[in-house]
């Protein structure tokens, strides 16, 4: 019996965003697909999803000991930590959270923080995702300087939100970086932020969307479905939703008691299952914390991308 299959062909592919300059270390490309994840018989998925390893620009104060133990002493020195991610753990991309400048972490002066950041960039050479401190006021102050310091590195900077996007957009535009557009589990707001950013003359094809990340067991399904809905709209032609997705799985999963308060295996699996679930919903760039979880998800991506 020959069964006649129903194939979904979509007209609007997702934008391809390149991060990194590709000089010392290969840049990464995300997006570009014209199908739901891993359906290679129905469409193209030219770029495998990427795992970025999250680090801070200072020793982490409140990270789970499971992660600290896995990295060991290097976490005390952000540059060594970054190098270890690349050289010992095989990271192809890093996500640096500039926590040191947050008031909680002692509001390190920007000039000191930039020395560390520049060293991370030059000593590793891998594509960088750089996030502010998390304190909105401080970030509007520091991000233009951060952006300038990384000019020419073609980084991905975040995050721009509906109520606070102008400073970051202008500075990314000036220094040639891509930008993360943040929205609170809401397709309409996601689209709105993308429009606001592109209305400032920023190339929509350099936006990466953060639809919000929620952990397994804490509303993971909301993000799962918002990603699927957003993708459906993009595939049928909504160009203001045709951006690749970034999700911060490490930061969310390691807040949960299921990850923190049990053995490391369960914690790692919590991060892995959240990641692989969101990969099935269309995640393109996953920022992870535990190096063993990151390795596991990278191996999964290699496997599932095999045609």
């Amino acid at each position, binding site marked *: *019996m020959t069964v006649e299959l129903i194939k979904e062909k979509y007209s609007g592919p997702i934008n391809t965003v390149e991060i990194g300059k590709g000089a010392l270390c290969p840049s990464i490309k995300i997006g570009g697909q014209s199908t739901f*994840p891993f359906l*290679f018989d129905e469409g193209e998925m030219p770029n495998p999803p990427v795992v970025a390893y999250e680090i801070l620009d200072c020793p982490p104060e409140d990270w789970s000991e499971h992660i600290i133990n896995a990295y060991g002493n290097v976490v005390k020195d952000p540059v060594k930590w970054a190098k270890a991610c690349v050289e010992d753990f095989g990271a192809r991309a890093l996500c640096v959270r500039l926590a040191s400048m947050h008031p909680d972490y002692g509001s390190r002066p920007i000039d000191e923080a930039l020395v560390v950041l520049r060293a991370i960039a030059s000593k590793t050479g891998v594509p960088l995702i750089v996030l502010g401190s998390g304190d909105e006021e401080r970030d509007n102050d520091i991000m233009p300087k951060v952006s300038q310091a990384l000019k020419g590195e073609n980084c991905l900077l975040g995050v721009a939100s509906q109520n606070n996007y102008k400073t970051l957009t202008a500075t990314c535009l000036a220094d040639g970086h891509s930008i993360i557009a943040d929205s609170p*589990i809401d397709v309409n707001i996601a689209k709105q932020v993308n429009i606001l950013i592109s209305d400032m003359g920023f190339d929509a094809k350099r936006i990466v969307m953060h639809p919000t990340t929620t952990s397994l067991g804490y509303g993971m*399904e909301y993000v799962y479905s918002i990603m699927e809905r957003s993708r459906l709209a993009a595939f049928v032609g909504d160009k203001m939703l045709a951006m690749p997705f970034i999700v911060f799985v490490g930061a969310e999963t390691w807040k949960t008691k299921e990850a923190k308060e049990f053995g490391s295996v369960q914690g790692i*699996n919590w991060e*892995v299952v959240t990641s692989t679930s969101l990969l099935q919903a269309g995640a393109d760039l996953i920022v992870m914390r535990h190096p063993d979880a990151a390795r*596991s998800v990278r191996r*999964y991506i290699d496997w599932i991308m095999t045609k």
Partner: protein
Amino acid sequence: MALTGLDIYKLLPKTNCKDCGFATCLAMAMALAQKKIPLDKCPHITAQAKDALESAAQPPIRLVSIGTGDAKFEVGNETVMFRHEQKFHNPTAIGILIEDSMSEEEISAAVSKINNLKFERVGQTIGANLICVKNSSGYRNKFMMAVSAVEAASKVAIALYSRDAESMQEAVKMCKDKRPLIICGDRTFPDNFISLARENKLPLAITCSGIDEAAEAVSKARAGGVEDILINLKSTGLSGRIQDYTYMRRLALKKNFRPLGYPIIAFTENADPELELSEAVSYMMKYAGIVVMKNMDKEFIFPLLVARQDIYQDPQKPVQVEPNIYKIGKVTKDSPVLVTTNFSITYFTVASEVESSKVPSYIICCDAEGMSVLTAWAADKFTAEKITEVLKKSGIEDMVAHRTLTIPGYVAVMSGKLEEISGWKISVGPREASGIINYLRNWKE
């Protein structure tokens, strides 16, 4: 897919003979469409029309039940490709593989481990649903030993997996009153598996390597009188399986294609536990009715079960947190008191920021029928009166010495009224949870 009266009319004899009791065939068709009368009211209907009408009346993916009593579960009856379109209905059953190459002691230990894979989460008990005994050894006596050990101790449903029909017959005899699933491991799919399932009225899973082969095998089973079917589709590669599972679900839903309108049973292939877990997650997200794992360690099964709970959550029914007073950190009678709604994401976001602030606090989670703050306020579920009632009845007035309540910034407008009727001093907190850390650190009574 439901047919309209006109669709049905086209399949009737159109003779207006009145033998059915209706004046015209069209009148009967209308009654059929409303499911007021059974199809056999028409004595002249052709077999072909009857088939077409019956298959249209069935759900696009058949509901199959396995096991009995507390161990019973159902899979199938799914209606959508994406959960936001409606919801996923019958949660993927998690099975654990036991191979008969193991010793009797190992099997007994495994069964008791599986029986204990039970967890309490958000008011539900979640656990493994199935033990699949596989005749990997190829020996009949080993298979019988394994089935007997599992049958004696298992508290979950049983699946029997063999390529040998005679072994299967023996195994079925041992446990048929527990409504086991028969899994035919023989790709040539011999007739005696079909007769075994039919005679014992048991569900049957067929093993095949591709969609065409599956459609053929299913048609053969149906022709042989078996309707409770599952499909074990062993397409090549992980992405190949995800693609084929997607095709199967789509054909069943969009074309009501009967030969593929049955739930999928997926067996993990990867022997590496960490990859096996992600493999199982993939099958669960992409349409498998049953996933059978080799690993049974709770650190792996628990996250998998939680993923199932998440993805099978009805998107129309927000997950709610139990309305209560939650203590974050080492609270004292001087700790701040915050109020929010019982929508799980709202509560978890607030709780996580409060925790990060390291300022021990009370969070009053107010019953707002699972809505977020603004929605609940707009729907009159999160009002000054409601909050006052909670303040008076929850016992918070005995827990703290002060009378200062923090409300979400979005409902600042109610502060005057709330202050007036509750007698508490109202402090307006930030609009977004991200502002809570700063707010709490500067909090004063």
